[in-house]
């Protein structure tokens, strides 16, 4: 690898430090979809009656679908109706939390491996200490 070429690439957009992106750069396609669906479910969706469904199993006329009711369940969890949310779909509350975590990780990629990074830093300092002791 050429050193000059590397130096020219250094101010490149790909950096691993969190909070580096400016403006709306933290919005990626996937996070836009998750955030948009969460906002829609939490603020605008009508949870009392289901008018239409995106589910292909539902469209085929099958009664059994493991994912149906999840959207309404997330919406109920966001509006504080936890018992109703659990009755609609048990995974509603966990999926709301997991999706929120996913959006945060997507927006600030430096945060994704934070426990691993802390572990590495701890190990590094320990190794330095052990080397110091040996001398």
């Amino acid at each position, binding site marked *: *690898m050429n050193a000059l*070429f*590397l130096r020219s*690439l*250094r101010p*490149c957009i*790909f*950096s*691993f430090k969190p909070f580096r992106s400016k403006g709306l750069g933290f919005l*990626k*396609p*996937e996070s836009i*979809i998750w955030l948009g669906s969460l906002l829609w479910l939490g603020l605008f969706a009508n949870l009392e009656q289901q008018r239409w469904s*995106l*589910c*292909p*199993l*539902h469209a085929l006329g099958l009664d059994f*679908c*493991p*994912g*149906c009711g*999840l959207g309404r369940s997330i919406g109920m969890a966001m509006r504080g109706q936890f018992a109703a949310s659990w009755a609609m779909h048990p*995974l509603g509350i*966990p*999926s709301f939390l*997991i999706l929120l*975590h*996913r959006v945060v990780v*997507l927006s600030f*990629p430096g945060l*994704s*491996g934070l426990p*691993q*990074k802390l572990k*590495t830093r701890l*190990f*590094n300092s320990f*190794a330095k200490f052990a*080397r110091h002791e040996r001398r």
Partner: protein
Amino acid sequence: MNAVEKEILLMPNMDGTERIFLHNVLGELNEEEQITALQIYRAKRKDPQMMLLLTLIGLVGAAGVHRFIMGQIGMGILYFFTAGFCFIGTILDLINYRQLALESNKQSAAEAAATVKIMRR
């Protein structure tokens, strides 16, 4: 062709974006360390084509295998128990598979560089 370029050529379906972030992450290391880091990275790397095939399994059988493989265990469990959000999430991931593979690859490249820096004395 030097040894680093040979090591990069061993990885299938490598595109320009991945090459650029590899240059960016491994730039501070010397050539020997770069080769070690690339060997570690090659073991951890997710081939985008493999991610596409694993996502396609979600339309037929178990959904969310790709999320488990990328280390997103929470999303994997969600996909598995809701049939990929009623197949909608699976279809989104079919569109987005390159970004997903790139994201996990960036993380493993950073990890590989960190591992090599630990071995340095």
